[in-house]
């Protein structure tokens, strides 16, 4: 059965370079020494540790609790003892630190994931209970962006017509989803069945690029006896077809509204590895391991490894036979990945690939001036004008960049790839986005400060008024008392004595001020003459 596919604008054919690892089966990485589980996983993961140093934990134990609906907890990937809860290097472009739970590891073998029917697992569970299971298992999108799965499944309460499984894996070099689809297609399909149970979509499409024929075949076979209307769709290889928005466009012809989410179109998109994790989650197996591709010329044992989340990358590299000398490790694919600052950073849930190369000895080709050739806008899948964005960001005209739809940029890197002047365009956009986000935050902060200040002013004013009111009331009471007294005095026919007193006091004050003024005058005159003499 073939479907009419749509196309997205632009796109590129970078050198795929998947050959190094695509035929290497997933092997389990054996942890030794310590495992560093960062509490910061994916986006907005505000996590609080629930273990203490010295605690003994078993694999699968929850290590943290979280309160933000967009965050998920982390779990112990292995048996061990908590040796520290401290700031450790984090796998982030900035090289920042993050609070992490450090375990002395012993026995890190992940659980096997046998393919069992899901009906008994889901029996008697409400949808909300299943989604909660998925959340407490710490499942987030494993395709790279790391959006938590549970809120996505709630879909703003809208009916999902089309469920899309993303098995495109369009980035060069990465083969971990390919291998997972080839080796454990049944488990992925079982995860899809869980999604089908939750969402009841009209159709389920699994998109796979045509450069993975074995995966397509395996998934087709696994789909044959599935309890859901699943169709495996072969898509032409074109980067970035695996971008969520691009895949939705390919399969449905629809475009996700700018600034919106796919569910507004009745579409939900999940990565195949996430489906696998969902299947594990309903078996009460939390997300503690993931498959990552390790490739590059500086490792002797490249491959696809099932790795405990929290494994320091340095350990992995040692076991993969990384070359001695200065290494450049790219986290993620060559198009969208970032260079790792610190090799002691751990594998997180969103790390799908490590590319290990020796640091280049010769300088890279020089960056030349932009010649406005528009190769970039021809390649942009979002139909942006990258070269105009570049001129705006280069001149720090971030507002202009914003009005050129900077925030619709998906940072796929197509523009940088085709640029004949070798300008690192995406780096400029990332920087500009960061600056604008900062400005936005500053604005919010300033707004909050202003509100606080206004509230304080209002409070002071209110208190003053209250005080004045109380005082006035007191005075009135006093006056009433005096009036009573006066009344009593008036009957005696006497003039008010304090009126004279007041007059006398005023006269005395005037006299005092006059004297003061005269004295001041006297003091000023000699001083000024002195000053004149000095000159």
């Amino acid at each position, binding site marked *: 059965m073939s479907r009419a596919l749509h196309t*997205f*604008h632009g796109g*590129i054919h*970078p*050198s795929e370079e998947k050959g190094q690892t695509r035929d290497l089966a997933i092997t389990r990485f054996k942890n030794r020494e310590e495992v560093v589980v960062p509490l910061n996983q994916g986006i907005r993961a505000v996590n609080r540790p629930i273990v203490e140093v010295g605690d003994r934990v078993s694999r699968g134990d929850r290590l943290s609790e979280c309160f933000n609906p967009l965050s998920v907890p982390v779990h112990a990937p292995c048996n061990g003892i908590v040796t520290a809860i401290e700031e450790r290097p984090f796998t982030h472009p900035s090289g920042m630190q993050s609070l992490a739970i450090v375990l002395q590891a012993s026995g890190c073998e992940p659980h096997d994931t046998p393919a069992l029917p899901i009906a008994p697992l889901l029996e008697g569970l409400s949808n909300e209970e299943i989604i909660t299971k998925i959340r407490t298992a710490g499942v987030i999108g494993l395709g790279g962006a790391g959006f938590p799965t549970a809120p996505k499944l709630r879909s703003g309460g809208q009916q999902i017509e089309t469920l899309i499984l993303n098995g495109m894996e369009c980035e*060069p070099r990465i083969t971990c989803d390919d291998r997972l689809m080839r080796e454990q297609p049944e488990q992925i399909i079982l995860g899809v069945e869980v999604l089908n149970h939750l969402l009841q979509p009209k159709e389920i499409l699994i998109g796979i690029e045509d450069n993975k024929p074995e995966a397509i075949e395996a998934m087709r076979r696994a789909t044959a006896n599935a309890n859901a209307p699943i169709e495996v769709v072969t898509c032409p290889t074109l980067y970035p077809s695996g971008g969520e*928005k691009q895949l939705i*466009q390919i399969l449905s012809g629809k*475009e*996700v*509204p*700018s*600034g*919106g989410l796919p569910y507004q179109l009745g579409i939900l998109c999940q990565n195949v590895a996430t489906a696998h994790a969902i299947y594990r989650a309903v078996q009460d197996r939390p997300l503690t391991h993931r498959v990552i591709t390790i490739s590059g010329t500086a490792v002797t044992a490249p491959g696809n490894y099932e790795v405990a989340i929290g494994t320091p990358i340095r350990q992995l590299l040692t076991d993969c036979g990384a070359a001695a000398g200065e290494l450049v490790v790219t986290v993620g694919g*060559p*198009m969208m990945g970032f*260079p790792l600052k610190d090799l002691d950073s751990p594998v997180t849930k969103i790390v799908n690939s490590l590319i290990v190369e020796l640091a280049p000895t010769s300088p*890279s*080709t*020089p960056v*030349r*001036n*932009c*010649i*406005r*050739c*528009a*190769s970039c*806008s*021809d390649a942009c*899948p*979002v*139909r*942006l*004008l990258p*070269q*105009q964005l570049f001129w705006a960001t280069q001149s720090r005209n971030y507002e202009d960049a914003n009005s*050129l*739809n900077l925030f*619709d940029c998906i940072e796929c*890197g197509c523009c*940088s*790839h*085709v*640029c*004949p*002047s*070798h300008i*690192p365009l*995406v780096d400029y956009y990332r920087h500009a986005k960061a600056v604008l986000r900062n400005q936005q935050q500053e604005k919010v902060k300033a707004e909050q400060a202003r509100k606080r200040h206004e509230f304080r002013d209002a409070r002071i004013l209110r208190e003053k008024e209250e005080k004045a009111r109380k005082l006035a009331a007191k005075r009135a009471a006093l006056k009433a008392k005096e009036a009573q007294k006066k009344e009593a005095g008036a009957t005696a026919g006497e003039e008010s004595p304090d009126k004279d007193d007041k007059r006398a006091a005023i006269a005395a004050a005037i006299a005092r001020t006059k004297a003061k003024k005269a004295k001041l005058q006297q003091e000023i005159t000699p001083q000024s003459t002195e000053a004149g003499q000095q000159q």
Partner: protein
Amino acid sequence: MVPHNSNTTSREMALVILAMIPGLFALGWIFGPGVWIHSAIAVPTAIVAEAAILLARGRNPMGELNDLSAILTALLLAVSLPPLLPWWMVLLGTGFAIILAKQLYGGLGQNPFNPAMIGYVILLVSFPKEMTSWLSASGMGGETISWGAATQAIFGGAPVALDSLSGATPLGGLKTTLAEGLTLQESLEKIPSGLLAGPGWEWVNFAFLFGGTILLLTRTISWHIPVSVLAGLSLMALIFNTIDPASYATPLYHLLSGGIMLGAFFIATDPVTASTTPMGRIWFGLGIGVLDYIIRTWGGYPDAVAFSVLLMNMFAPLIDHFTQPTIYGAQKGEKA
């Protein structure tokens, strides 16, 4: 760091230079070796001028000269010049093109106007007589201009004997005779003509069309600008030829006359000074085609690729502003 594909600015420039070879050959074959001598003067001039300014700007000349853009500018100017133009005018034009029109704006990518066309127009308005005197086509039945004669004319001042060979271009001649009140048919009989247009000119245009096709096939340029330039010119020619066939030449005559193919494929497509959006490139090209027709037909100059390109260069930023493509997921009715 995102890996780059094999394309580089130098490679693009080199491809454009290579694609000019058919045109250079046709011009030399038909109008004598003057164009080759001019190229030999213009290219070193451009390199020296660019290097001098780069040094003055404190840049490394070797690092930027190898983008080949200066050589391309020099060649574009050389093929636009009448074949026996004195050497110092070539020098002057190239110097202006590189120094004034390109480097003083900040070098490659920063100039708002096409440098080669600025050089050409400065020469045209300064030396109108020399700049509008073309040789009659020699390869097509006219007298052959030898290397010696061409060299002598270019370096030694034009000898009187050559005056008989030079004259207005067919387009210029056509305009003059039409202005005298002759019909198109009578004019075409009076001025020298070739198979489809002015003698020899159709071959020059075919040669540049061939080179341009190579650029299209290698995706060095996109189809938008050349196609719309030719469409703009043809459309205007078609309209006026239909209204009054006695006074206005056919679209085919226009398409194969003057420097239109050179202009459409090699000059208007200079990315630095052209529009960059897909729709913008079409408007930009149409504008050049239409302006070229207007100036050719009613203006004071026989051909107008240079003026039309420069005029549209001015509009490129404006066109870009109004032709921004609708981005992915833009809401209907919302400004893109």
